[in-house]
Structures are given as structure tokens and as C-alpha cells.
């Protein structure tokens, strides 16, 4: 019994942390958002160390429905890492003229909802059974819907919440329908049994299409991406950051679990399908990003494109490809958090979200501008930043199968993406401040926020140069997921 609880210790502690932060204000009077962020930050930091330290045992438990392996724990570490970084980005700014991004009164609720969402993601990657998996999925989506609509006074936020709930219900419906067909064919809800019993038939193809569309919504893969732009724009920026990193990573894990693994042996051309999905996603994301000026919409498009690159690596189901995906997820999380960190800092201090208003950033806040530029370059895949070797690895995974056309599509897309990433750099660096009505002035960034930016910036450089991170990805990718 104790062993079983050890297996789910991370999930238990996440639940405890979520309940704890909610009750903090009840227990101690007059507590501010800072302490809440601090508690959750420390908690998640501790959990991250716990996950990586190897203290959580590997193995199956609870009647074969719950699996922990190196790969599963690696995904969990990625979720907890993104939760940790986003939590710290919620640290309120002080001083005059600041515009808090989340209502300070409900800070604890926001953090607790995010923790529940992380918990759901952990359940998704561990689940070996469809019902548990679906419960995890809903645990991820519902808190995110609430978080998206968190700024009740902002009509964009409410609109985004509405859109998100509709689309996520639709995708859940599609997914459930597909899963029920799978159950009908295999006669079991256990994933290992399903992958043995599935055979090639019209029904299995149909169900794989339903499941793929359902998962496609979560990953925001084209053509299932329609909700992304508006939801990302309307949601409070820390929530957008969380959506774009953690929820995307969870969607990709889901793709492995319920599309590639069960159907991989059945539908022989699924690789072509994923490759087409990747091509569409990359190309659309990049083309849509060309015209965005709002930083949130811009990063939404960029994150669609990034998901496309990851799908390129997913074409290769061997450990080689999986290692590339896990490694790139790590790279993507830190690079995207760096980008969002800078956007959050600017939005908090000045309320600006339009990249054309970033003029003068490199002169008034050179360090922040540098972080921002490095984040853009890392996302664009410029060496020696982590994004470069990450993309190299992903494309190598596709090239290993001989899909050179996909590599070419990917590299051309990377060139297109460079254009818009450079556009941001242009506004921040190239345009002279006297050419703008009100260039950005010097502003203060609180210590915690600077700490996050420092960590991710060092991360972007180190992860790309030091070989240990790739070795880690290669080691964990060998185990079952």
C-alpha cells in the first residue's frame, strides 16, 4: 500500500499544495499575493527536485492503471518546471502605474487552479487506462477555462473563456467518441491491451481520426487551431504563458499515448499523416505570425509553429525521435517562458502589449531587451542558443527516416519564422526612440521576476551547449510512456 502511495506522491503533494494555498488566506489574516506566490513557488521548486532526484519509484500500480517510468517522470518534470516558472512570473509588480495582470484579490485561486491543471497533466502521462486518462484530461482543461476567463472585468478575457470552453468541450467530445469506438473494438480500456487488439479496419481508421482531431485541439495543430489566437490574446498573460508551454506539452504526451502507440502498428501511413499535420501547423503558424502586432497573438502564432516543429520530431517513434521531442520541449519551455517573462514585465510596468510600442526598450532597459532578443533567437533556432540544437535534433529525427522533404519544409519554415522574430527585435533594437511618440522609459522589475529571467536566459545558453541535457533526454526516452 505504501509503495502505491509512493508512486503517486507527486500527485498527492500537488493536491496538498493546491488546497494549502487556497486555505492560506483563511488561516492567516492579511496575507498578500506575494506570500502565496512564494509558497507555491517553493512548493513547486521542491517538487521539481523531488521528480528529478529519482525518489519517486518507477513501476505500475493501482491495478495496472498508473505507470511511472523515466519518460513519464521526465514529462512530469517538464510540467512542474513550467508551473514553477509561470508561478514566479505571477509575482506582483510594485510601484505606481502598474497594471496587475491577475486580480490580486484572487491570486490564491489562480495559483490553485494552475496546480490542479498541472496535477491533471501528471495524471495524463501516467494513466494506462482510458477512463483515468480522460479524468486527467478534464482536470487539465476545466481549470484552464476558468483561468482564461479570470479577468472578469475585461471583456476580452470573458470572450476567450467562452471560446475556450466551447472548443475544449467539442474536442473532448470528439476524443471521447473516438475512445468509445476503440473500446468497442478492443473490448478493454487498458492501453496495453488496446494496442495488442487493434487491427486495421475502417472503424479503427475512423476512430483514429476522431482521436487525432481531439488531441489536435489540445496541441493547437492546424486545422484544429482556430481557438488559439483569441484565447491566447484574451487570457491574462501568465495564463497564456502556461497554456502555451505546459498544456501544449501535455497535448503532445497525449499524442504519443493514444495516437502513436495504439495506432502506430495498425495504420501504416500514420507517419505521413503526422508529417502533413506538422507541415500544415508549421506553415500556418509562421504565415499567421507575419502580420501580428499584439505580442500575445504573436506568441500564440509562434507557439503554433513551434508545435509544428515538434510534430516533425514525432514522426520518428523510436527513442531517437522521442528524445528529440523531450529535449525540444525543455528548450521550448525555457525559451517561451523567457519571451513571456519579458512581455509580462513590460505589460505589468507599462500596460503595453503591442510590439510597435517596444521602441526604446534596448536603450531604457538593455538587460530586459537582451533577454527578449535571446528568447526570440532561441525560438528561431539561432546558435549557440538551445533552440538551435533542439531544432537540429528534431529535424535529424525526421531525416533518420529518410523524410528529407519534411526537413526541407522545416528549415524553410524556420527561415520564414526568422522574419517575424526579427521584426520584434527590430522594434526593440533597430528603431530609434526619437522616431516614436512615447518610447519606453526605464522601469523596475522585482527581484523574483529578474530571477526567473536570469534562470531561463542561462538555461537557454547552457542547455544548448552543455551535452548533459541531451544525454538526459536520451536516457529517459528509452523507457515506456
Amino acid at each position, binding site marked *: 500500500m505504501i509503495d502505491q502511495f509512493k508512486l503517486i506522491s507527486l500527485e498527492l503533494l500537488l493536491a496538498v499544495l493546491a488546497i494549502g494555498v487556497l486555505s492560506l488566506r483563511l488561516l492567516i489574516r492579511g496575507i498578500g499575493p506575494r506570500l502565496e506566490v512564494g509558497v507555491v513557488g517553493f512548493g513547486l521548486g521542491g517538487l521539481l527536485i523531488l521528480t528529478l532526484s529519482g525518489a519517486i519509484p518507477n513501476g505500475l500500480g493501482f491495478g495496472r492503471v498508473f505507470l511511472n517510468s523515466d519518460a513519464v517522470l521526465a514529462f512530469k518534470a517538464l510540467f512542474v518546471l513550467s508551473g514553477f516558472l509561470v508561478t514566479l512570473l505571477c509575482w506582483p509588480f510594485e510601484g505606481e502605474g502598474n497594471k496587475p495582470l491577475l486580480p490580486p484579490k484572487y491570486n490564491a485561486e489562480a495559483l490553485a487552479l494552475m496546480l490542479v491543471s498541472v496535477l491533471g497533466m501528471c495524471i495524463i502521462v501516467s494513466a494506462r487506462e482510458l477512463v483515468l486518462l480522460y479524468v486527467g484530461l478534464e482536470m487539465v482543461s476545466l481549470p484552464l477555462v476558468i483561468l482564461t476567463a479570470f479577468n472578469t472585468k475585461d471583456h476580452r478575457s470573458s470572450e476567450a473563456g467562452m471560446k475556450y470552453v466551447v472548443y475544449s468541450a467539442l474536442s473532448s467530445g470528439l476524443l471521447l467518441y473516438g475512445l468509445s469506438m476503440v473500446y468497442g473494438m478492443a473490448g478493454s480500456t487498458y492501453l496495453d491491451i488496446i494496442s495488442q487488439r487493434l487491427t486495421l479496419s475502417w472503424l479503427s481508421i475512423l476512430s483514429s481520426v476522431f482521436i487525432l482531431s481531439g488531441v489536435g485541439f489540445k496541441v493547437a495543430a492546424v486545422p484544429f487551431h482556430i481557438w488559439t489566437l483569441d484565447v491566447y490574446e484574451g487570457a491574462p498573460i501568465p495564463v497564456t504563458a502556461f497554456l502555451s508551454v505546459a498544456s501544449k506539452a501535455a497535448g503532445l504526451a497525449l499524442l504519443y499515448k493514444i495516437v502513436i502507440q495504439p495506432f502506430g502498428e495498425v495504420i501504416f501511413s500514420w507517419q505521413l499523416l503526422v508529417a502533413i499535420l506538422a507541415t500544415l501547423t508549421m506553415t500556418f503558424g509562421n504565415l499567421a505570425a507575419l502580420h501580428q502586432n499584439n505580442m500575445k497573438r504573436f506568441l500564440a502564432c509562434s507557439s503554433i509553429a513551434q508545435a509544428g516543429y515538434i510534430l516533425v520530431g514525432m514522426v520518428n517513434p523510436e527513442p531517437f525521435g522521442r528524445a528529440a521531442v523531450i529535449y525540444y520541449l525543455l528548450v521550448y519551455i525555457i525559451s517561451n517562458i523567457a519571451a513571456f517573462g519579458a512581455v509580462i514585465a513590460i505589460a505589468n510596468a507599462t500596460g503595453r502589449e503591442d510590439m510597435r510600442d517596444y521602441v526604446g526598450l534596448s536603450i531604457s532597459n538593455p538587460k530586459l531587451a537582451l533577454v527578449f532578443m535571446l528568447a526570440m533567437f532561441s525560438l528561431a533556432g539561432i546558435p549557440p542558443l538551445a533552440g538551435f540544437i533542439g531544432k537540429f535534433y528534431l*529535424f535529424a529525427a525526421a531525416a533518420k527516416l529518410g523524410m528529407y522533404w519534411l526537413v526541407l519544409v522545416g528549415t524553410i519554415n524556420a527561415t520564414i519564422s526568422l522574419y517575424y522574430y526579427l521584426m520584434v527585435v*527590430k522594434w526593440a533594437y533597430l528603431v530609434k526612440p526619437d522616431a516614436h511618440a512615447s518610447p519606453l522609459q526605464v522601469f523596475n522589475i522585482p527581484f523574483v521576476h529578474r530571477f526567473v529571467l536570469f534562470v531561463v536566459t542561462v538555461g537557454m545558453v547552457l542547455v544548448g551547449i552543455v551535452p548533459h541535457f541531451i544525454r538526459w533526454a536520451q536516457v529517459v526516452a528509452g523507457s515506456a510512456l
Partner: protein
Amino acid sequence: MGILSTIVLVPIVAVILISLVPESRPAWIKRIAFIAAGINLCLATWLLIDFTIKVLHADSGGASTALALEYVERYHWFEKLGIDYFMGADGISVLMIFLTAIVIFCGVCASWDHSYRVKEFFNFLFLLVTGVFGVFAARDLFLFFLFYELAVLPMYLLIGIWGTGPREYSAMKLTLMLMGGSALIFLGILVLYFESGAHSFSMVEIGRAGVSESTQRWLFPVMFFGFGTLGGLWPFHTWSPDGHASAPTAVSMLHAGVLMKLGGYGCLLSMYLMPKGAIMWSGLFLVLTTINLFYGSLIAVKKTDLKYITAYSSVSHCGLILFGLGTLNSVAFQGAVFQMYAHGLMTALFFALIGMIYGRTHTRYVTEMGGLLSVMPWLGCAYFVGGLAGLGLPGLAGFIAEIQVFMGAFSVDSPIVKILTVLAASSVVTTAVYMLRALTKMFYGPIQNSEHAKLTDANLVEKLALVILVFLLGFSGMFPGWLMKIISYSLNPIMAQIQQIKLISGI
């Protein structure tokens, strides 16, 4: 740590040191930059001399197809991907490293008067130089590509922030076109890795393993166009005139002087890795580069903006490099590599002078200048030497390169190549037209603008840069023998491969 790593590391250390100096002390920043560039120049000179001694003592190399590398450093980096930190130099890279060190040293001298955002300027400049040194020293394709991109990207900021004219447009165009080229190279590297089955990105191993003929057939043009974009190959050269015209002095010097040579260097590399592809496609590239030579020089005749004249002449001269490579003839190959070196010195000299002249007269239009020789004799004389080297006057470095390329090309046993050579060689005439016309308009005749009479000549730092460049142009033009020895020694493996294939297939 070996000498090659040291050379790559010195600019990085300079970047770190410069970052520590407060913005309010530009003099210190410039001093650090000057010292770092000086150290690199010393190291590169030592490298060149040491390598020459090694070559003179070595036997003639024979017909080995393995790259003859010196100063090798090799450590595992990303083992499972077959990526090593692998540095090594042959004669060509030693020469190119020397050229880079010269150009950056003179570039720092030429930007001594910089005053706008000095710290960032030198930071980006040295980052760029790190990349360039790295490309020439790297022997692992991944490392090579990493440095290659590092050499291209800072250009965006350097042109975009400190440039003149339509700087944002030029910077974006340049970056995107070059990155588009590198997208092709990226694909090429991955294909080479997986198709050769060498399980290593090292050029040595991939060269030994080789790739199949059918792969070479489609992959060679991909790589060649990728590198050709940076090498100014027509019709992918359009970034170059705009970029060079908008860039600040030191950046134009580096870019036209060294960066475009990366293209030629990369083409040479892909010829080594895919000799069969090189033979299959040489005809197409000869035609394209002949257009290069002609087109560049013809447009240069039409232009009156000094930077555009030099930029188009660069397109024409870089075409000569690729033309020499396209002939697949050992003499022309030597000439092409020598042209990389000679043209690097020439263009660096030109762009340095244009920067200095513009800094004084505030115009770059030839038509608005005149009689400047009496006002600034130093700048005038240096421009004269550069111009004469550009049109290939015997005794200067440009001549040696041109004569070898054309002689080698003409000796190829094919009437079409002979015709193309004649066509290409006649572009020398147009070169003389624009060079001499610009020279006479600018420096002779009456002074056009009375303001210009009050201008001063080059200051001490500028004179230093000019003297170095002019001296080297003359010195390597008069004593090219030892440089040729290094070059031919290092070209042996590539030529041996091509000869073998030609023998086997009976071409």
C-alpha cells in the same frame, strides 16, 4: 587548449570584457577591442608562419584523398548524435584565418571614431568574428554550421542599428536570404550524415565514407546554392549590394572581405564531400558565375555611389572565385583560393577607405567629389593601390589570382569552358572602366566642393590600417610562391578525389 580554440576564444573573452565596461567609457571599450584584435592578429600570423614551415618540411603530399589537418583538437560533445568538438586547419583555413584577423584588426582601427552605442557595436562585431574564425577552424559539420549561423546573424543588428540609408530593409533582406541559404545547408548536412552512414558529423569521416552517386546528384546543387547565396552567386546575390551599402564601415569590410569567402569556402567543402556531384553540375555553375562576373561589373559601371560600386565589384570578383571552382582544374582552384585572400584584402581596403572618405566629405557619390588627392594624399594613394589590385595589375595580389583562374580555366579540354573563359575574362575590361573612372573623378581634377579643401588626411590609427592592407596586397602579389605552396598542398586531397573519379569514369 590548442591554438585554433584560442583564436576562437579571444573574441568571446573580448565580448565578456567589453560587457563589463560601463557604456560611459567608450575609450576603454575601443582599447579592449584593439588589443583583442591585435592578439588575434599575432596568433594568426604565427599560425600562418608555423604552417608554412610545416608544409615546406613535409613531402609533397602525393595523391592522398584524406584532408591533411594540423592543430587538431577533438573532444566528444553530443556523443550519441555523433557530434564532436573537432577543430583542425589545412592551408586554406590557415590563410582565411589570417585574412579574418587582418580584416578585423583593420576594421577596429577604421571604426575608431564610432560614438553611437559603442559597447553593443563592438560586442556584436566580435561575436560575428567568433563565428567567422570558427567556421574556418571547424572540422565537424555541426560545429561548422553552428559557427556559420553565428557569423550571419549579428549582421542583422550591426546593419540595422548602425547602418545608413534603408538599413532596416537591407538588414532584413540580407539576413533572410542568407538564412534561406543556410536552410539548404542544414538539410544538406543532415542528408550527408545519414546517407554516408559515417555516424559522425566529422568532415574527415564523411569524406572517407562518401555518399552514393544518386544522392550526390541532387544534394550537390542544394549545398552549392546554399553556400553560393553567401558567396554572391547570381541570381542569389541581391542581398549583397544593399547590405554592403547600408552597413557601417567595419561591417562592410568584414562582410565583403571575409564573410562572402565563407560561401566559396563552403562550396569547396561540398566539392570535397561530393566530388561526383561537382563534376555533374560544373557546367551550370560555370554559366551562372560567368553571368556573375559580367553582371557585377556592368552594374558597377552604372553606379555613382561608391559603396554600390564596390559592392557590385565584389559580386563580380566573388563570381571569379566560384568560376575558378567550377572549372575543376587544379590551377584554377589555386587561383580561386588565392582570389578569396586577395579579394578579402582589396575589399576591406576599399570599404575602409570609403568609410574614411565618407566620414570626412559626408557624401558617397563619385560625382560630388573631385581633386581629393591633394587634400588627403594617404587615402588617395591607398585607394589607388586598391583600385589597381582590383583591375588586376601585375605586381599586386589580384593579378596572381585572376591569371591563374583564367589560365586554369582555359586549359580545360572543352570548347564550351574555353568560350565561357573568354567571356569571363573580358569582364576585366569593364572592371578597368569603373575602377579608373571612379579614381579619376574622385582624386583628380579640380576640387569640386570648396568645403572639401579644408578636410584632413588619415589619422594615425587609420594610417595603420591602410598600411597593413596595402603592404599585404603588394607583398603577396610580389611573393605569392609560398602562399601558393600552402594552398596547393591543401588542395591536393580535393584534386586527387576529382582526378580519381575522372579517371574511373573516363571523362
